[in-house]
């Protein structure tokens, strides 16, 4: 037994609430307030995980986000996630933790043998081998041993994560002394403040370092300050990590909950950001410095004071700086036998009482297997130890500053990169800015908030003993004996850095990628600086000349669920809903998604044979009368003094000649000449048109109308209103459509002379105005009746009721697709693609005749547009008795031993009315090849078909007026 829980103390734990959880199958006792790591230490568990590559036994290094070793898969609790840092994860009752990358467990990993071959598998060895006979032979085995934790395939989401947007004057990141002081001063200046800290308890270093502020013990000052800030209505978020600063200083926070809720993502747009993110302690370089129970000195102090865990009986404290003296003293006071090994010779602080000081000495190696047993110093002295705590100096947490494009400045006396020139909207304070003594921390906080405005708050004063900041740089050196570990999690040693340099991977980014230094889940928080300092040494450059790699979000790993929020299921790419959806549901409609709308595909219920139902609907539609909900068709109004001139420019077809009360079919082209949309344009009066574009193009057509209006015609010329949702459009089609409509008594004459094909009429249904358009997408006489969307239900019901006597059929979109294909009517995007020009569809009139300008015009005369071998729109017929061609089938030509596509089938159905398959296709030179039989291929199967005109049914168009 080396580590143990002391019988008293521990500011973070509640001894009245014992808990237990499981780690690698054994039960671990702890208290509420413990982290998994503190409870494991209290239980004297030394090996908590295995390293990524060599499966080296590893113990707890830190007490916070910098932890490289202690990763566990957490399950069975309110949170379930792999690769969780034991140092930040609360030890909740009933939690099940499992060490990662270890089989069966961390203490006895059967892949531990890999370490014995480490000399043959240095950094990047995999680029040099596994090539013969083939990488695929080796890869599966390598994949199996790689990776850290495990995903639970049966895991169920607890629900979507919450996402909250906030605005404030000042956001302070870090609630240590600098952040608390900054928040207090900003609040005192009358600014709205948000203060965030990634720890469950606020206070930062004040939670375990000696300090007295404004005459009060640190803990009391922290509590008082937090109460004051919260009391003034400001937002204070604990367990919340500021993980990214994005463009224009948007700052993203991830807040953890411990009540079963998923984490919350906050997007905060502050006017000013104060970064008080502190600093992270570095390891010291010596051989075997990765053995379990070699730990950060600051962490050892945190475990002692926050959790009342004394990590050993016989402890070597090794340091190059002043900050470890308090640690050594506290460990000795708690009862440990402490030796302080100090690299520096002169100007040292006094040795704490009860601590044996060895000055001017450094560790060269540690010994031990599953935990450290002792160390050897550079003078050959050997010391026995059950724990070694080290402080290699402090690395300011500059991540967020750099994400905001801040540049760093190297500070030789502190042996660290500090924030350089200021970034607009961001100020820095505290240890991040190199402050060590509490007085300096507070003055940096005052400076960081000075530009915010005059504050009524009094800046805090340090009234106790002050820390001092002396440090002697201690970097790994070339050709050191043994394995000196730099990146614990990714198993990068000093020798790996030397190898990278030898092979010319000397750029800092090459170093990172070649050795994987800093690419683990801790993103190199404890390792990056040592790695690049060694590279500087080897290549004869200074540390700033080598530079750092780019800091990227997130600062610590963030659950994917936080980013997704509620954006999933029906809240992702939401479908639009028909006004009559519930009526269709009640009538047995089977719905599909078409062009962003949920629409009836067919009726007859989900139990029906869909193909038969659709065939039946299409057949009956031609026999008497069909009812169809066409509400999704676009209804975009174009109004104003230049409306006619405007639609002429927008459409391929001349539209200004259209008479009021009449409709015309036309194409809209893109500027590259491609047919973008087709539809009916209605002219209501001299200055008012309605663009009835296709369902899926309403938003894009609206946008392009608005664009041309503002870009070419000027705002006063024309105005665009999208009124698509205002009206439901109920279509009546078929030989008996007029009869049905007449029975509705809509108050207008349906006489063909007064309401011919392609004309509109106005009528009433009860109290509501209706607009009737005689247009047809079936080839039969048809009427589109539009009525206010919220009043459509009675009209639809009347149509259904009236239709009974006429054997009317209600059809879904699938039957309509058959009907229009029988007529050779196109669906843009199905029968055309992003290369189809209007003349490919046989509409060449405007191209050859129009003299005025229109969108896409010049593109119809390029070399390619004039080419003879263009794909042209045709029909295809197959031999009697053969099944329909598959949509997507290609027409093929053979030549030179190779196949070549000469077009493809765009639509294909069985026509119930014709009693045979019909198909539409785009075929090379198709318009001039009617009657020719061609070869087609689908999934390797060869078929034949004869090219015909696109229209297979009623080519003379008599039924439009029948």
């Amino acid at each position, binding site marked *: 037994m080396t580590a143990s829980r002391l019988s008293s103390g521990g500011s973070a734990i509640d001894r009245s609430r014992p808990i237990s959880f499981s780690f690698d199958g054994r039960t671990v006792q702890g208290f509420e307030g413990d982290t998994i790591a503190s409870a494991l230490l209290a239980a004297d568990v030394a090996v908590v995980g295995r390293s990524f590559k060599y499966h080296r036994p590893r113990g707890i290094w830190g007490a916070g986000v910098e932890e490289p070793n202690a990763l566990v898969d957490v399950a069975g609790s309110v949170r379930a996630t792999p690769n969780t840092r034991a140092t930040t994860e609360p030890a909740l009752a009933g939690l099940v933790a499992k060490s990662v990358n270890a089989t069966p467990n961390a203490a006895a990993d059967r892949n531990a043998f890999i370490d014995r071959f480490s000399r043959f598998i240095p950094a990047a060895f995999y680029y040099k081998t596994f090539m013969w006979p083939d990488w695929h032979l080796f890869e599966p085995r390598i994949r199996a041993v790689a990776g850290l934790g495990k995903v639970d395939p049966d895991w169920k989401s607890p629900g979507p994560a919450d996402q909250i947007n906030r605005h404030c004057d000042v956001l302070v990141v870090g609630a240590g002394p600098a952040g608390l002081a900054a928040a207090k001063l900003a609040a005192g200046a009358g600014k709205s403040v948000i203060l965030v800290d990634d720890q469950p308890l606020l206070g930062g270093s004040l939670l375990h370092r000696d300090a007295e502020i404004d005459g009060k013990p640190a803990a009391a000052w922290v509590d008082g300050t937090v109460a004051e800030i919260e009391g003034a209505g400001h937002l204070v978020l604990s367990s919340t990590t500021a993980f990214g600063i994005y*463009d*224009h200083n948007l700052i993203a926070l991830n807040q953890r909950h411990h009540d079963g809720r998923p984490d919350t993502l906050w997007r905060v747009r502050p006017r000013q950001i104060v970064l008080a993110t502190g600093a992270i302690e570095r390891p010291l370089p010596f051989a075997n410095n990765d053995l379990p129970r070699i730990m950060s000195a600051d962490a050892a102090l945190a475990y002692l004071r926050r959790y009342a865990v004394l990590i050993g009986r016989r402890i070597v404290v090794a340091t190059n700086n002043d900050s470890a003296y308090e640690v050594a003293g506290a460990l000795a006071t708690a009862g440990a036998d402490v030796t302080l090994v100090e690299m520096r010779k002169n100007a040292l602080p006094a040795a704490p009482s009860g601590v044996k000081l060895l000055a001017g000495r450094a560790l060269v190696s540690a010994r031990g297997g599953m935990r450290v047993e002792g160390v050897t110093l550079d003078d050959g002295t050997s010391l026995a130890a059950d724990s070694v705590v080290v402080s290699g100096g402090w690395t300011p947490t500059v991540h967020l500053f750099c994400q905001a*494009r801040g540049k760093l400045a190297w500070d030789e006396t502190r042996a660290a990169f500090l924030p350089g020139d200021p970034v607009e909207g961001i100020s820095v304070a505290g240890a991040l800015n190199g402050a060590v003594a509490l007085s300096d921390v507070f003055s940096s906080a005052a400076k960081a908030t000075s530009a915010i405005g005059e504050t009524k708050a009094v800046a805090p004063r340090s009234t106790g003993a002050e820390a001092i900041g002396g440090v002697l740089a201690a970097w790994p050196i070339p050709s050191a004996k043994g394995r000196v570990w730099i990146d614990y999690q990714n198993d990068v040693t000093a020798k790996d850095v030397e190898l990278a340099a030898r092979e010319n991977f000397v750029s800092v980014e090459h170093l990172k990628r070649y050795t994987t230094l800093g690419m683990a889940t801790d993103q190199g928080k404890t390792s990056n600086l040592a790695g690049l300092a060694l590279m500087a040494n080897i290549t004869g450059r200074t540390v700033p000349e080598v530079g750092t790699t780019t800091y990227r979000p997130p600062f610590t790993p963030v659950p994917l669920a936080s980013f997704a929020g509620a954006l999933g299921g029906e809240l992702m790419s939401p479908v639009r809903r028909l006004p009559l959806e519930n009526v269709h549901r009640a009538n047995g409609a089977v719905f599909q998604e078409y062009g962003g709308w949920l629409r009836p595909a067919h009726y007859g219920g989900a139990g029906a044979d869909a193909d038969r139902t659709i065939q039946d609907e299409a057949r009956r539609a031609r026999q008497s009368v069909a009812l169809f909900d066409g509400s999704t068709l676009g209804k975009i109004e174009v109004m104003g003094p230049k409306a006619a001139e405007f639609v002429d420019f927008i459409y391929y077809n001349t539209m200004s000649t259209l008479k009021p009360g009449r409709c015309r079919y036309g194409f809209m082209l893109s500027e590259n000449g491609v047919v973008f949309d087709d539809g009916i344009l209605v002219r209501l009066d001299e200055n008012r048109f309605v663009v009835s574009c296709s369902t899926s193009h309403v938003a894009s057509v609206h946008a392009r109308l*608005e*664009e041309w209006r503002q870009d*070419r015609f000027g705002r006063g010329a024309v105005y665009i209103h999208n009124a698509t949702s205002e009206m439901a459009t109920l279509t009546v089609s078929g030989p008996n459509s007029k009869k049905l409509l007449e029975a509705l008594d809509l108050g207008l004459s349906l006489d063909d002379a007064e309401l011919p094909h392609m004309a509109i009429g106005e009528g009433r249904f009860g109290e509501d105005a209706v607009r009737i358009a005689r247009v047809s997408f079936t080839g039969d006489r048809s009427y589109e009746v539009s009525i206010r969307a919220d009043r459509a239900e009675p009209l639809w019901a009347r149509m259904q009721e009236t239709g009974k006597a006429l054997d009317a059929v209600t059809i879904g979109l699938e039957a309509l697709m058959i009907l229009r294909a029988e007529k050779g009517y196109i669906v843009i995007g199905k029968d055309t693609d992003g290369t189809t020009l209007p003349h490919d569809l046989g509409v060449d009139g405007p191209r050859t005749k129009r003299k005025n*300008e229109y969108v896409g015009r010049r*593109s119809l005369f390029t*070399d390619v547009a004039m080419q003879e071998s263009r794909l042209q729109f045709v029909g295809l017929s197959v031999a009697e008795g053969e099944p329909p061609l598959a949509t997507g089938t290609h027409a093929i030509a053979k030549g030179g031993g190779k196949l070549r596509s000469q077009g493809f089938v765009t639509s294909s159905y069985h026509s119930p009315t014709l009693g045979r398959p019909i198909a539409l296709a785009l075929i090379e030179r198709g318009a001039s090849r009617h009657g020719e039989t061609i070869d087609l291929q689908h999934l390797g199967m060869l078929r034949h078909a004869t090219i015909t005109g696109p229209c297979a049914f009623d080519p003379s168009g008599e039924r439009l007026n029948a």
Partner: protein
Amino acid sequence: MQLFTCPFCGPRDETEFHFGGEAGNLRPDGADVTADRWASYLYMRDNPKGATREIWVHMNCGEFFVMERDTVNHKVETSIALDSAEHA
């Protein structure tokens, strides 16, 4: 997430906007425009690294405008409505 300024609505998040192309790319009218000139209008771009002048639309209010901004540091300088901008 960038903040753009709609000349009418003021600052809004970038998700409310749509890129409309480089400013000053004037459309040549007519069927007799040379192929190169037409291709230049359709396809060729300055695509500058640094200061740029672009057409954007604020999708919520439909305002088309000219925005001057920097394509590297994403700093936004000015935005003015299309019909009051020097459109050349």
